[in-house]
């Protein structure tokens, strides 16, 4: 059964390379969104959240993955989880140095792991996805690419561009790197260091200690049908399988494998000199589990499923709440997210939207949504503004935190409202014409009206969609005269009335000169 490992490595390496490439600046431009959606649909974390919001093809792929887990255990963790494969890369690198890894069996800390999982779920149900953000593996990986790998690639690109530019070669374009927020980079770097450290220290410890997806699949794999076990007839008690087990779940002395901690790498099967480790149908009695544990497990499963289902209810009710109280204190959430409460209770801060936003107006926040919404993205109008015709973020969001909008819908979603601070305006202060805000305004919510012999901006906030074009363009220093304040719950903007000035005429008059 050595081919099992070969297949696993092939799928894992292929998937890892493809998804990493798609998440980089370059891949994001070259590869159609469809592929990104397809690959992200295979990620359990986002798929669970999205399926609870509404049924979609994410639910189908989720079902398939859960079914595979039910059949063969947590093979997902070793093939489709990019964070898992990243850990495997470190483990592999370590092996270049230390000839053979020497893992030893450790009794998995199920209690702690399931406690963290429960806490993650309960908090998420209460609308605080803090632990989902911090621990969900896809978001964690995607964040590493967005905040560490991409800036490095951009710096390299710009560096190469500068060399080419001196020779007047213009096929490379400089990539604008948005402001770097130290807190965010440090947080993401800390996560990256933690992952590296745990992987080098004890293999896939993260997956069996902190990972919520690991916990969920571990619960399912307790009842898996085909499982890895030690064939007592063939085993020569060499202990090699235990030494290569990244998940530390093989007790070679007792000839037992703790299958719910097994991440399905099949290294043990590959290395066993005597075919003593095999994948076969489970026996009727599972040795290491008593019946009462079984019952508790079932209860726990039921409850966690119920709590997951509970996610839907508070989310739906939130989105129906009216209001729309505005204040500069709140961050502005992207169009399609419904409002900051709904958004903040679902978003796992994977930064896919940050990565693919063409104008780079989406920016990871630090604590703007509170500690429970750490790292979730917000609109940052000091860097850019939201393109009127663009609906990209909704297309890539894997969790449904930003729902896809069609361009017509989007043009009426009011995520915030502009406020005009007259005393800051160039026209008032310098007594000269300006109009940069009205120039950029796509709806003409900001328009120019006579002011002596000059023109001054005036706002019709019913038309404003809060895109931030006016705020971004306003040249007033040090304080802008146009500021967009958040709609805590997104509203619907009015459509501008259309009235033709004159019929489109082809009639020719004489030249007026």
């Amino acid at each position, binding site marked *: 059964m050595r081919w099992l490992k070969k297949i696993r490595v092939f799928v894992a390496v292929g998937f890892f390379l493809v998804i990493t490439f798609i998440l980089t600046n370059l891949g994001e431009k070259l590869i159609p969104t469809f592929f990104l959606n397809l690959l992200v649909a295979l990620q359990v974390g986002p798929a669970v959240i999205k399926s609870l919001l509404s049924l979609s093809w994410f639910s189908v792929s989720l079902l398939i993955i859960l079914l595979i887990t039910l059949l063969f255990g947590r093979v997902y963790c070793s093939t489709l989880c990019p964070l898992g494969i990243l850990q495997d890369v470190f483990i592999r690198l370590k092996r270049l140095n230390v000839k053979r890894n020497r893992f030893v069996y450790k009794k998995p800390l199920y209690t702690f792991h399931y406690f963290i999982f429960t806490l993650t779920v309960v908090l998420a149900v209460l609308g605080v996805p803090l632990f989902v953000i911090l621990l969900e593996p896809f978001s964690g990986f995607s964040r590493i690419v967005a905040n560490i790998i991409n800036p490095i690639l951009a710096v390299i690109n710009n560096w190469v561009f500068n060399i080419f530019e001196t020779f007047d070669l213009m096929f490379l374009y400089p990539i604008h790197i948005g402001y770097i927020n130290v807190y965010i980079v440090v947080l993401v770097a800390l996560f990256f260091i933690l992952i590296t450290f745990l992987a080098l220290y004890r293999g896939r410890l993260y997956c069996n200690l902190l990972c919520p997806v690991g916990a969920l699949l571990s619960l399912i794999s307790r009842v898996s049908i085909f499982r890895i076990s030690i064939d007592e007839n063939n085993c020569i008690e060499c202990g090699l399988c235990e030494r290569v087990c990244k998940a530390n779940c093989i007790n070679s002395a007792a000839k037992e494998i703790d299958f719910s901690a097994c991440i399905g790498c099949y290294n043990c099967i590959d290395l066993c000199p005597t075919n003593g480790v095999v994948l076969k149908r489970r026996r009727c009695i599972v040795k290491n589990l008593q019946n009462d544990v079984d019952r508790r497990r079932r209860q726990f499963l039921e409850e966690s499923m119920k709590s997951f289902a509970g996610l839907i209810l508070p989310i739906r009710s939130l989105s129906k709440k009216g209001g729309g109280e505005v204040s500069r204190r709140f961050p502005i959430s992207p169009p399609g997210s419904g409002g900051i409460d709904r958004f903040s209770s679902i978003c796992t801060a994977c930064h896919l939207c940050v990565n693919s936003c063409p104008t780079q107006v989406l920016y990871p926040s630090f604590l703007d949504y509170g500690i429970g919404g750490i790292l979730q993205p917000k609109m940052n109008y000091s860097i850019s503004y939201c393109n009127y015709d663009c609906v990209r973020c909704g297309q890539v969001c894997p969790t449904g935190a930003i729902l896809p909008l069609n361009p017509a819908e989007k043009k009426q979603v009011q995520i915030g409202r502009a406020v005009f601070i007259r005393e800051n305006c160039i026209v008032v202060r310098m007594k000269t014409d300006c*109009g940069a805000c009205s120039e950029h*305004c796509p709806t003409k919510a900001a328009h120019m009206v006579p002011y002596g012999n000059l023109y001054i901006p005036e706002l019709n906030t019913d038309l404003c969609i809060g895109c931030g074009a006016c705020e971004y363009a306003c040249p007033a220093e040090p304080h802008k005269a146009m500021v967009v304040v958040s709609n805590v719950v997104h509203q619907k903007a009015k459509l501008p009335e259309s009235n033709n*000035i004159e019929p489109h005429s082809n009639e020719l008059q004489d030249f007026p000169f």
Partner: protein
Amino acid sequence: MDRRTFFKKGFATAVTLSAFYSERTFALLGFGKEAGLTVDLVAVKGGEPDEMFRRGIKVYGGLGKFVKKGQKVVVKPNIGWDVTPERAANTNPKLVYEIVRHCIDAGAKEVHVFDHTCDNWERCYKNSGIEKAVKDAGGKMAPGNAESYYHEVTVSAGKNLKKAKEHELVLEADVFINVPVLKDHGGSRLTIAMKNLMGIVWDRGYWHRNDLHQCIADFATYRKPTLNIVDAYAVMKKNGPRGRSIDDIVIMKSLLISTDIVAIDTAAAKLFGYDPSDVNYIQIAAEQKVGRMDLENLHIERITI
């Protein structure tokens, strides 16, 4: 150096220099007169954008009078906004195609087209239809999105604008063709040829903070395009410069060509229905002797198709 090499080198230098300055020297010395350069402004009406350009440029004796073999040309349309061609917020792609085509037919070594856009540049280039038009015509789209492309220049005659950062393509070009679209403009009332030059500089915020009209006129004292071509085929009459919908547009089927940037802006303002002296920067530029506002004293060719 013996006498023979001295002569050889001297002759080579003279040839190079004269080739380099030929167009401007010829124009300055009045050699161009018999070739039709005496015309100050050409106004065309009633045709498609490309057709109007072909008819108009004939008056000058073809674009070959401005673009010589082996020269580097920059064509600067307005590509400021991420909207489709029928919204007329950007220069008509058909016109841009025709101009680039004429440059190449005249023997230009390379034709670059760019704008320092307001909306996201890649979307603007694509959705304006200009990227495709330029590529089809054999020109090159160049980016204008990074400060490193722009180099500091001195505007010696400037009153408020003393220095600006200008795109290197324009600095290196032998021929610079300015192709604005005539539009309503919230900040400067109208955007035409002089206002279009804001797309070849980096820091526009400075202009807005330091009297927009004065800065536009100041920059026109420094950068004088070889040729200005105003697209007034579809004209945005309100909600400019971005426009809100197709309702802002009136089809005027007009085109202006001139080497005088003030004259062309004056004529375009009249075409739009404004008194040119109400558009402050035109008035200031005329006072700073950038060009002439007195259309009645200019030689204007009028063509109706």
